[in-house]
């Protein structure tokens, strides 16, 4: 009887793993079939207004890149503070708050940026969208930096200081270098996460049918456009949304996997 229960339990556990994998496969296969079906290389050459995706893909990249340019230095600096400088309560409080912020609903961050940037500046802009993404990114980068720096052995720091290097020199030249791979991986994963975000962009950058590099106007966003296109009645719009989803997912998974690959190689 005990053995029977054991068998049943183990089978159920294997079954749930199969279910999990089945969902992954189902989603990927759907994307592959629907996405590839409407995929065409001209999608990369035309803007949305002409039935292509060029402006959206470039726009999404620019938004994520600006968000990274803001979020990575701030997040890393904060992570360095928590791990290297901060002593006692304050650093711990910041660490906890950052963890909470990491799980804050993304749409609420969108609403926040809407209230503090979009309303005062009089309209949606690429800049507001990038800020919203940066706010999403900062806690993730803090978390990675914090974790990775904590893995660097204390002896390395002590050796640096014994050689007479000042603390910031030790941090930049020794500690960060030692934790480089881990931090890079974390940053890649954070980038993969924000490039697929939709909710914080809905009312900050919105989206645009035209090619644009002007950050003070509504900015083309792949994810927001997928949402718009998928809700349109015409079959052709939905096909375009599938093609866009396919490209987006491929991109996110490639970035994600390469992040993991870097770490694995290092180990």
């Amino acid at each position, binding site marked *: 009887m*005990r053995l029977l229960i054991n068998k049943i*339990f*183990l089978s*159920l*556990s294997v079954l*749930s*793993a199969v*279910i*999990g*994998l089945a*969902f*992954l496969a*189902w*989603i990927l296969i*759907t*994307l592959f079939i629907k996405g590839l079906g409407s995929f065409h290389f001209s999608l990369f050459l035309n803007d949305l207004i002409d039935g292509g995706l060029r402006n959206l893909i470039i726009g999404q990249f620019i938004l994520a890149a600006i968000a990274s340019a803001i979020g990575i230095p*701030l997040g890393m*600096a*904060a992570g*360095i*503070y928590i791990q290297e*400088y901060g002593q006692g309560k304050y*650093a711990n*409080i*910041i660490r*906890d*708050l*950052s963890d*909470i912020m990491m*799980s*804050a*609903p*993304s*749409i*609420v961050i*969108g*609403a*926040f940026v809407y*209230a*503090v940037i979009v309303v005062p500046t009089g309209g949606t802009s690429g800049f507001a969208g990038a800020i919203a993404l940066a706010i999403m990114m*900062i*806690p993730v980068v803090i978390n990675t930096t914090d974790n990775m720096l904590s893995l660097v052995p204390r002896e390395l720091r002590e050796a640096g200081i014994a050689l007479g290097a*000042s*603390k*910031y020199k030790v941090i930049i030249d020794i500690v960060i270098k030692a934790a480089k791979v881990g931090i890079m991986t974390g940053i890649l994963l954070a980038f993969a996460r924000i490039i*697929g975000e*939709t*909710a914080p962009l*809905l009312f900050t950058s919105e989206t645009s049918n035209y090619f644009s590099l002007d950050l003070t106007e509504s900015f083309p966003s792949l*994810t927001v456009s*997928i*949402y718009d296109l*998928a809700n349109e009645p015409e079959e052709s719009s939905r096909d375009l949304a599938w093609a866009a*989803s396919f490209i*987006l*997912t491929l991109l*996110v*998974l490639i970035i*994600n*996997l390469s992040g993991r690959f870097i770490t694995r190689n290092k180990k």
Partner: protein
Amino acid sequence: MEKIFQKLSLASASLVFVLLVGIFITLYTAAKPAIDEYGFDFITNSDWNKEVSLESAPADTLMESDSDEIVDEDDMDIMDEDDMMLDEDEMMLDDEDDSLSKTIFGGLVPIVGTLLTTLIALTFALPIAMGIAVFLAEIAPKNISNVVGIAIELLAAIPSIIFGMWGLYYFAPIVADLVGGYQVSLLTAGLVLGVMILPFMAAITRDSMNTTPAVLKESAYALGATKFEVIKDIIFPYSKVGIIGSIILALGRALGETMAVAFLIGSIFVLPQKITDPTISIPVAMANNFGEASGLGESALFYLALILFIISFAIISIAKFYFLKKAK
């Protein structure tokens, strides 16, 4: 130089604090008109943006028809003020459907919708996530566990909007065939949300299970325990706190999810009678109505955002500080 570097890093760290407080204050300020207007009744009022066409009907007939509809509403003073709001808003309104009229805004429907979808998602995801975690931590050989683990984490990396589209066009029709009812409903939204939080929950649960000392497990096996007994009597009690923490964390994530739910919940402000009825959740209410809202309507959306922020803040704090800290 040393000083500057230290100050800069301190400033960046403090930014987190400033941002969180800033979000809270901003949401509160923006929600203030709605909070003043409705107070806590907001949470129990199920009327949202009564559908009265403002473009065609002149204001007088509007008020009449409006009063007829809300006769059963006991709060008459709210109504008067709202009718005045109507006049204001009439000028600003230009576009379609549900944003045409601003009468009473109550948050009950999206709040209930959010809680119910999250509940369905948890009910669905919990057993499967536990099964996957057990499989990864205890059953599968190392290399299979690694591969499956990566696959599960990839599932977590897929953007939520993809879950939404897939859910709407492929998953929901099957569910609707099986149980009947609408394709867009509480049930389908909850299930897709469940699929979304599944990998997240499984990954953290596996991590807490892996903290069980090997010595404990080995001793139990040596006493002749089966795998099931080891998991039930050794691993589970040992990692219980961490597992509960991971469940609550997944709950926090499910509460705030927007895009996957937006495709599937139906986006109508009606209290669901059955599990297969369409309704709306807080994030979806914001996503779909924010652009067109103005005045009190926008403020009411901020009120909802504030409620969502406070709920998720509280839930995540409980998970982090009570359960996950203890687990460490």
